[in-house]
């Protein structure tokens, strides 16, 4: 039972990170119908910036959480700037181009970001200084560390904040209007360019936080870490229903838990026929099942294709 609880905790922590990244995909997709494949690499930029700051400050004697906070304060604006620039330079000129063009551009931007990061930070695995306490608390036989609690708490707060921003504010109203019909939104006085920019900047800020969490949690950062993470988060977004904010959160959490349980119990359940090497296979198998029965994802609505 304690092992089951531990796997559940592992899954929730991993899932919270997936959710936060998946939100970035879903926000941009919801507003402009574009899959921003460079999103995972913005997470990487966030991780790298946090790591650089943490390394600079690790000997300063400041308390660990404060160092992490400063790192995050540096990473968020950096990622926001990267997100804004990507939208302005790579996507805006293609706003009215066929859908395939911005998709390919997104892959190009992803490769560009990876190579830039490789030039700046090198190609080695970078280790994150040990600034957070490593003691764990025992909860019902399972151990939880401070950083795990921090990850789940801060991603819950950010998701709740984003949710109410979209539902309750004028900005959120404008974003939803743009998502429904950009032309009509323009007629109603919504500045589409500004809304799209804000969407990218918001998504990038979430990515920065996710990057900070990943690097602090695993204690490692690498220039191509965004690729797999981005792919998993994109899967989570599709699982929950891409374009749907709650869907991204649910999809992320589910994927995290499925992966963790898959790795933990697949071997026992199949009597050793399938081991933890089928962890990813299992996660994608669930995705396929969901898409067969609910093609628009768990919480996605079937909507008419936008012209």
């Amino acid at each position, binding site marked *: 039972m304690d*092992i089951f609880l*531990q*796997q559940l905790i*592992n*899954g929730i*922590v*991993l899932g919270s990170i997936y959710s936060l990244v998946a939100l970035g995909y879903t926000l941009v997709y919801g507003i402009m119908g574009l899959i921003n494949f460079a999103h995972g690499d913005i997470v990487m930029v966030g991780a790298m910036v946090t790591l650089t700051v943490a390394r600079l400050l690790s000997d300063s004697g400041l308390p660990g959480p404060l160092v992490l906070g400063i790192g995050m304060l540096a990473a968020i604006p950096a990622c926001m700037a990267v997100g804004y620039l990507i939208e302005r330079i790579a996507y805006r000129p293609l706003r009215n181009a066929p859908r395939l063009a911005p998709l390919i551009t997104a892959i190009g931007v992803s490769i560009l970001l990876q190579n830039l990061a490789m030039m700046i930070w090198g*190609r*080695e*695995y970078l*280790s994150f200084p*040990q600034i957070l306490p*490593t003691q*764990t608390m*025992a909860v019902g036989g399972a*151990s939880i*560390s401070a950083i795990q609690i921090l990850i789940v708490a801060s991603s819950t707060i950010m998701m709740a904040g984003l949710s109410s921003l979209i539902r309750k504010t004028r900005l959120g109203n404008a974003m939803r209007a743009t998502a429904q019909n950009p032309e009509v939104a323009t007629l109603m006085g919504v500045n589409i360019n500004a809304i799209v920019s804000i969407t990218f900047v918001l998504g990038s800020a979430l990515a920065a936080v996710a990057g900070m969490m990943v690097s602090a949690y*695993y*204690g*490692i950062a*690498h220039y191509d*870490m965004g690729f*797999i993470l981005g792919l998993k988060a994109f899967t989570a977004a599709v699982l929950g229903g891409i374009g749907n904010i709650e869907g991204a959160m649910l999809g992320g959490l589910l994927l995290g838990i499925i*992966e*963790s*349980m*898959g*790795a*933990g*119990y697949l*071997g026992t359940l199949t009597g050793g026929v399938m*081991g*933890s*090497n089928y*962890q990813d296979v299992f996660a994608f198998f669930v995705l396929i099942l969901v898409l067969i029965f609910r093609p628009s994802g768990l919480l996605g609505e079937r909507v008419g294709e936008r012209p």
Partner: protein
Amino acid sequence: MTMLRPLLAAMAAILLCSCAKQKPGSEFVVRIGSVAPLTGPQSHLGKDNDNGVRLAADEINASGLVIGGKKMSVEVLSEDDQADPRTATIVAQKLVDEGVNGIVGHFNSGTSIPASRIYSDAGIPQISPSATATTYTGQGFETTFRVVTNDRQQGEALAKFATDTLHARTVAIIDDRTAYGQGIADEFEKDAKAGGAALVAHEFTSDHATDFTAILTSIKGKNPDLVFYGGMDAQAGPMMKQMRNLGMKMAFLGADGSKSPEFIKLAGTAAEGAYASAPGLPLEKMPGGKAFVEKFTAKYGKIQLYSPYSFDATMALVNAMKQAGSVDPARYLPVLSRIRMDGVTGPISFDRKGDILHGAVTLYQVRNGSWTALP
């Protein structure tokens, strides 16, 4: 027609020149291909190997090389195989087409094995400084050699250490599903079982993974005396850290892929107490170790893992050429297979398969933040 004749003559001359691989100054060139991952997660180790080859080449060139009465110089052609079997075969073919005289590489077992067929077909001798998988020399190729102890010998020593020295009765194994990781894990599993230890779990990960909490938790439930990891430092470091964060206090044992300074950097304080083996003797016990460290660090900085071996591999190739009096692979290959020389890492000679004779294995533990050889 008469107009064409001088042109043809000129073209023939150019062709002849390129065949003889003559450089200006009438010096002949021995081309040695050095293949390792120079980009990606293992690039620090790949670069280390490449530097070993370059150090050997510089030394040979500085002291003046004469083969078959001709003054020669060694040229190193470095290729990046990205630790990827597919890329490995592409760069291997490229080196063969460029007419290399010998190969030092590849770094990984997973890349050395597919590439060895290409070198064998071309008849070009290949010495790997670091591929330890038993299958590498088990394919029956005459051109395939290694100067490093293989996984058979290493797995045996690791299992003996786990069961006899650490008295582990139950073990869990994790491997990264690469030719190297799987190979060493299987050897360890076989020998540990033979030594009386029970295997409670065999879990899998990949050589790009960063999250191991799920498989570690699963192992935690079975509470083995020891966790063995077959894979590289980029995974072993974070794995060790996550193990300790999960409150798992059992011994951690890795093989040569984990035994690097990088492992300690990545695992941080959690690295303390970890065990790992490395083929061969520790640097300070190698016959030429002290001089090598001085020369290497002056030029390239810290030694990662296998640069002494890539240095010896290069020396073995050139020595065989010297003794045969030829750089022609067909002529010096028979000499190489029965070579006897004193390398930096110890005496170099090969058995019938191309494995190093009397390969040593040393066990290490992280003590006070650095790898310390166990007696």
